[in-house]
C-alpha cells in the first residue's frame, strides 16, 4: 500500500522538478558540487562581498566620483549671471513641482485607494485594474498622449471649441506629472489598506466614533508609514521625469528639462555646457538626497491631529450623501485627469493604422529605420540591465533581508535607495562624466551601466522586501534537515519569492525601457538613441507627420504591453 502511494506521489509530485533526478547525472553532479561549495563560509562571503563591491563600484561611487572630479568646472557658470539665474530657477521649479504633485496626488489618490479596497461593488475591481494603465505606459508615450489630449485641437479642446485648452507650460506639466504619479500612490495605499486590520476602526466605531472620526484618528495615523512612502515615491517620480516633461513643458523648465535643453543647445561653448551640466546635476543629486533623508527622518515625527473630535461636523461629513459625492468626484478626477489623457493616444494611432503609415513602418522605410534601431537598442539595454541586476542584486537583497552586515545593514539599505531618489538625467550626466573618461568603453556599455544604476534599486528593494517576509525559521529548519545553503535558496527561498523576483525584473525592464533622462545624458550619438529619446525628438520634429508620431508612440506602447504580458504569463505558468 505504502509503495503504491509512494509511486503515485512520486509520479505526481512537483518535487520531481525540485530535486534533480538521479538519471540526470551531470546536472545532479553540478548541483551537488555547487551545494557543497555554498556550505563553505569563504564562498558565501565571496558572493556577498562581490555583490557589495558591485554596488559600490558600479552603482554608488561612479556618479559621486564623476561629479566630484569635475566640480571645479562649476566656476565657469558663476561668471554667467543669466545662465546661472535660469539654472537656479529650473532647480527650484523641480522641487516645487515635485512637492505640489506629491501632496495633491496624495489627496486625490487616497480616496480612490479607499474606494477600491472598501467598496463591495464590481466597479471597484474594474477601477483597480485600470489604475495601473498610466503606470504601464512608458512616460514618453504618456507625455505625447497628454499633449494631444489637453493641448491639441483634436483633444478635449474640441469640446470647448478652442485651439488648446491647456497650452504647453506649467499647467500641462502639472497634469502630466499628476497622472503618472497617481497610480504609484493608489497602488501603495491599496496594499497598505489591505494589510490594515479593520478591527481597530470597528472598535473605534463601537466606542461611538463617527466613520470619519475613526478614519481620521485611528486609520490614517496607523497608515502613516505607507502615506510617507507613497509621498516620497510620487515626489521622486516627479523630480526625475524628463522625456515626457520636455514634450509638454513649452517655455517652462525644471532641472531635468533644463539639462535636456543644455545637452541639445547649439552654439554654447563646450566648457560652459559642461559647467552648467555639472552645476545643475550636482545640486539636484545632493539636494534631493538630503531632502529625501530629511523627509524620511522627520515625517514619522509628524502627528495627525487626533486629540480633538468634532462629532456633529464629522457626522455630517460621514453621511452617505457626502460619501457618494466624494466617490463621484474621485472617479471623475481619475477618469478625466488620469485615465483619459493616458489612453487618448489610441485615437490617432487607429488613424495611423488605416492611412498606410503602418505599412511604411513595417518595411522600415523613411524615418522608420531609425525607429526600429532605437527599439533594438532599448530592448537590448532593458534585457541586459535586468540580467545584470538579477545576478548582482540577489545577493545584495539577501544581505539586506538577512542583515548580513549586522548594524551596518540599515546604512547599506539607505545607500541602495539613492539611485531612485535623484533625478535620472542628473545621474546620467554624472555617470557620463565618470565612464566617459574610459575611452575604450563603447557608448553602448556606458548606456548599459547607466540604465543598470538607475534600475538597481527597484530589483534589490523588491527582492529584499519579499525575503524579509519569509520567516527566518523556515530557512533554519531546512538547514537542520540537511539542506546546504544553495539548496535552501533554490528550494525554499526562491520558490517563495519568485513572484517578487519576476515583479522586480519586470520593474527593472520597464523602467530601463522607459528611461529618457539618463539615456539622453549618456547617448551622444544618434546611433545609440533609445526609443524614448527618439520619440521626444520626433514629437518636436516638424518633418515627422502626426500619423508617424502617433504610430511610433502606439507601437512603443503595444510592444511594451506584449513583453509585460509575456512575463506575466510566464510568472503564472511557473507559479
Amino acid at each position, binding site marked *: 500500500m*505504502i*509503495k503504491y*502511494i*509512494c509511486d503515485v*506521489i*512520486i509520479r*505526481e*509530485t*512537483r*518535487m*520531481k522538478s*525540485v*530535486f534533480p*533526478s*538521479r538519471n540526470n547525472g551531470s546536472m545532479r553532479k553540478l548541483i551537488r558540487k555547487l551545494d557543497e561549495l555554498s*556550505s563553505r563560509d569563504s564562498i558565501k562571503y565571496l558572493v556577498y562581498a562581490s555583490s557589495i563591491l558591485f554596488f559600490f563600484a558600479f552603482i554608488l561611487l561612479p556618479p559621486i566620483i564623476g561629479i566630484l572630479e569635475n566640480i571645479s568646472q562649476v566656476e565657469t557658470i558663476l561668471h554667467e549671471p543669466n545662465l546661472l539665474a535660469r539654472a537656479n530657477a529650473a532647480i527650484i521649479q523641480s522641487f516645487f513641482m515635485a512637492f505640489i504633485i506629491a501632496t495633491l496626488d496624495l489627496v486625490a489618490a487616497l480616496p480612490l485607494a479607499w474606494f477600491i479596497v472598501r467598496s463591495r461593488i464590481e466597479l471597484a475591481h474594474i477601477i483597480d485594474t485600470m489604475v495601473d494603465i498610466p503606470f504601464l505606459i512608458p512616460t514618453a508615450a504618456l507625455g505625447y498622449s497628454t499633449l494631444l489630449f489637453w493641448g491639441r485641437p483634436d483633444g478635449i479642446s474640441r469640446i470647448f471649441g478652442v485651439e488648446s485648452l491647456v497650452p504647453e507650460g506649467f499647467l500641462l506639466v502639472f497634469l502630466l506629472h499628476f497622472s503618472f504619479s497617481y497610480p504609484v500612490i493608489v497602488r501603495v495605499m491599496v496594499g497598505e489598506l489591505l494589510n490594515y486590520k479593520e478591527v481597530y476602526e470597528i472598535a473605534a466605531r463601537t466606542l461611538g466614533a463617527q466613520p470619519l472620526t475613526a478614519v481620521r484618528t485611528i486609520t490614517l495615523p496607523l497608515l502613516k508609514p505607507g502615506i510617507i512612502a507613497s509621498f516620497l515615491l510620487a515626489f521622486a517620480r516627479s523630480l526625475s521625469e524628463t522625456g515626457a516633461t520636455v514634450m509638454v513643458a513649452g517655455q517652462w523648465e525644471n532641472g531635468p528639462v533644463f539639462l535636456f535643453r543644455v545637452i541639445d543647445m547649439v552654439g554654447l561653448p563646450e566648457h560652459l555646457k559642461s559647467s552648467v551640466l555639472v552645476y545643475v546635476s550636482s545640486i539636484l543629486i545632493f539636494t534631493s538626497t538630503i531632502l529625501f533623508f530629511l523627509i524620511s527622518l522627520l515625517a514619522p515625527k509628524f502627528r495627525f491631529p487626533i486629540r480633538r473630535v468634532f462629532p456633529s461636523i464629522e457626522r455630517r461629513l460621514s453621511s452617505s450623501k457626502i460619501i457618494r459625492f466624494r466617490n463621484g468626484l474621485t472617479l471623475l478626477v481619475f477618469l478625466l485627469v488620469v485615465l483619459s489623457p493616458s489612453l487618448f493616444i489610441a485615437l490617432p494611432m487607429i488613424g495611423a493604422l488605416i492611412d498606410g503609415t503602418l505599412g511604411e513602418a513595417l518595411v522600415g522605410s523613411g524615418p522608420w529605420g531609425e525607429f526600429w534601431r532605437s527599439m533594438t537598442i532599448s530592448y537590448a539595454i532593458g534585457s541586459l540591465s535586468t540580467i545584470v541586476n538579477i545576478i548582482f542584486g540577489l545577493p545584495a537583497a539577501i544581505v539586506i533581508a538577512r542583515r548580513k552586515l549586522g548594524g551596518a545593514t540599515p546604512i547599506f539599505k539607505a545607500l541602495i535607495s539613492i539611485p531612485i531618489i535623484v533625478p535620472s538625467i542628473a545621474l546620467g550626466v554624472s555617470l557620463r562624466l565618470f565612464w566617459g573618461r574610459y575611452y575604450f568603453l563603447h557608448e553602448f556599455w556606458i548606456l548599459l551601466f547607466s540604465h543598470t544604476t538607475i534600475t538597481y534599486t527597484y530589483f534589490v528593494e523588491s527582492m529584499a522586501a519579499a525575503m524579509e517576509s519569509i*520567516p527566518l*525559521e*523556515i530557512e*533554519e*529548519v*531546512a*538547514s*537542520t*534537515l*540537511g*539542506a*546546504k545553503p544553495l*539548496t535552501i535558496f533554490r*528550494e*525554499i527561498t526562491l*520558490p*517563495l519569492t519568485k513572484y517578487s523576483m519576476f515583479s522586480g525584473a519586470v520593474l527593472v525592464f520597464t523602467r530601463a525601457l522607459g528611461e529618457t533622462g539618463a539615456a539622453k545624458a549618456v547617448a551622444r550619438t544618434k546611433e545609440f538613441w533609445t526609443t524614448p529619446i527618439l520619440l521626444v525628438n520626433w514629437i518636436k520634429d516638424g518633418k515627422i507627420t502626426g500619423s508617424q508620431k502617433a504610430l511610433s508612440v502606439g507601437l512603443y506602447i503595444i510592444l511594451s504591453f506584449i513583453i509585460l504580458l509575456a512575463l506575466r504569463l510566464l510568472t503564472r505558468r511557473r507559479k
Partner: protein
Amino acid sequence: MPLIELVNVTKRYGNVTAIKNLSLKMNDGEYICVLGPTGSGKTTLLKLIAGIVKPDSGEIYIDGRLVNDVPPQERNVAYVPQYYALFPHMSVIDNVAFGPLSRGFSREEAYKVSMQMLEMTKLAWRANSFPHELSGGMQQRLALARGLASGAKILLLDEPLGALDARLRVELRYKLRGIAKKNKLTTIHVTHDQEEAMVVADRIVVLRNGEIQQEGPPSQVYNEPKSIFVAHFVGGANFLEGFVAEVDQYGSWIQLRNGFLLRVNDVNRVVGERIVVMVREEKVEVIKGARRREEINLFPGAVSEVSFLGDFVSYSITLDNGDKVSSRMPSVFGLKRFGIGERVYVRLKPENLRVYPYPPQGLYKELEVI
C-alpha cells in the same frame, strides 16, 4: 558517553547575554524538558545545539565530536520551531521528503521513509494536502514527521504544543513522548508549561536568565526545589518571610510577622538570619477548628477567596498576622467547603516546609518570571 554536551557555553546578542556559562550533559535516548520563563534562553539553547547560532565561548559536543563550527545540515538534528516553519509551497509529503532528499537519499527511498513517517503520525491520508489545509494538531504532527524523516537522532522541540488548544495539548504530549521513545531519540523539549514538563520529561532543566537553576527528575525538581525561583516556577507555592528565632538539634523556630512562631525541620540556620519559608499549596491544610490549641504550626485566619477548579478547590486565607497563604484541597464529594469570611485554622506540617535564605534583591524580585 553523553550524546550532547555543552561546556561553559555563552551566547550574547549585543548587550544581552542569552546563555551564561552554561554546562549540560544529555544522554542517548533521554527526554529532557527545558523549563523557563520568557527570555530565559530556552530557544537560544536549542539553536546553539542545532547550529543555527554559534556560541561566543564554550564548547558543544555531539556524540563526542566538537561541533562549534559544524553547520546545521551536518549535525543530524531535527529542529521543530514553535510555529513549525512548514514550507508553505510544498505539499505534506514534499515537506517530509525534503530532509531525506537533502541528505542525498534517492527519491524512492526518500518518499518511502516519508510515507512511513506520515503513517506513524497518522497523516498519510493528507499526503497531497498543503500545510495551510491542515488543522493545528496535524501541522504539529507534520513538523514532527518531517523532523523524524530526516533520520536525525536528536529532536529539538521549541514549544511544540504551544500553538494548540488545551485539550489537544494534553492529548499530544503523551504521543510526542511515545514517538520519541519508540524511535530512541534524544529529545530536548522546550516549554514554559511546568505541568507539560512534569508529564513528559525524564529530566527537567530549569533555566533563568541564561543560567541553569536546577536539573533533575521531575519529582525531585518539584519536591526539592533548590531555590525560591524554582519552587515558584514549578508548581504553586506559598512564601512566608521571617527571622530565625531559635535553633536546636531537631530544627528551628521561625518568627513570622506579628509574633507568629513557625517550626521547621531545618537545623542549618543561624539565629537572627532573615529567611523565606516555602510550602506547596497542596500541603497547606485548612481546618475548621483546632483540636488542640497548643498544637504547633496552627494559625488562625479567615477565608478571603474561594475558587472551584473542578478536581480541586483553591482557598486564599489571610492569617491573623497579615500573611496570606493559598491552599489547594481535593474537591471530594461530601467534604465541607469553606465560605468567604469564614474563620479557619491553617496547619503547616514542619516536614512540608523548606527554608531559603532571604534573597539579596528581595522576595518580590526573586519571584519575577519575566
